[in-house]
């Protein structure tokens, strides 16, 4: 009984923490000033947000095939998300999209 309770508490903790990271990633996607910095924000959602939620789901599922599938999902996300980010950043850079450097946040002032 107490084992189930521990799993439930852990599931809560991980999923809520993951949700917070997902939200922070979303806020960053809106708040940050240029494309290259927004990639970092999307990275928060893709790494900690996704992983913590999936780990929380694993605690909720227990020792079943579902946990294995969740682990596989986690592995695929971890393996593919950096490749996609890299491809995006590289394509943008080769296309000549200039990154905003230094502290000059007023260069492209489309943030609020």
């Amino acid at each position: 009984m107490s084992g189930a309770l521990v799993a439930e508490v852990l599931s809560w903790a991980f999923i809520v923490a993951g949700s917070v990271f997902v939200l922070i990633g979303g806020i960053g996607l809106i708040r940050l000033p240029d494309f290259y910095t927004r990639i970092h924000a999307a990275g928060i959602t893709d790494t900690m947000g996704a992983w913590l939620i999936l780990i929380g789901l694993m605690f909720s599922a227990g020792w079943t095939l579902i946990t294995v599938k969740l682990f596989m999902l986690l592995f695929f996300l971890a393996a593919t998300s950096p490749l996609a980010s890299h491809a995006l950043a590289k394509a943008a850079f080769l296309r000549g999209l200039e990154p905003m450097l230094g502290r000059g946040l007023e260069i492209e002032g489309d943030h609020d």
Partner: protein
Amino acid sequence: MDQFGAATLALLVCMAMTLFRSIAGPTVFDRVLAVNSFGTKTVLLIAVYGFLTGRPDFLDLALVYALMNFIGTIAVMKFTRFGDLAGMEDDDEETL
């Protein structure tokens, strides 16, 4: 409401933010980034939704989405760079 409901709400809110970026995003790449990010959130939403309704059988779908999303992003990037899915050898020297 349990933890899955909380995660669902967070994901929906974050989806709305991503949607804003995909519509407002000044450059093309912002939009592609938004699509990719939206795909990740769809994967998570489907995984969480399965638990929310007590039938976690939808995970297969989430797996397929995760892979489709990745392939889609790579294909879009190849198109924006080469205008062709087969393009690869042109600029090996400069970029590899």
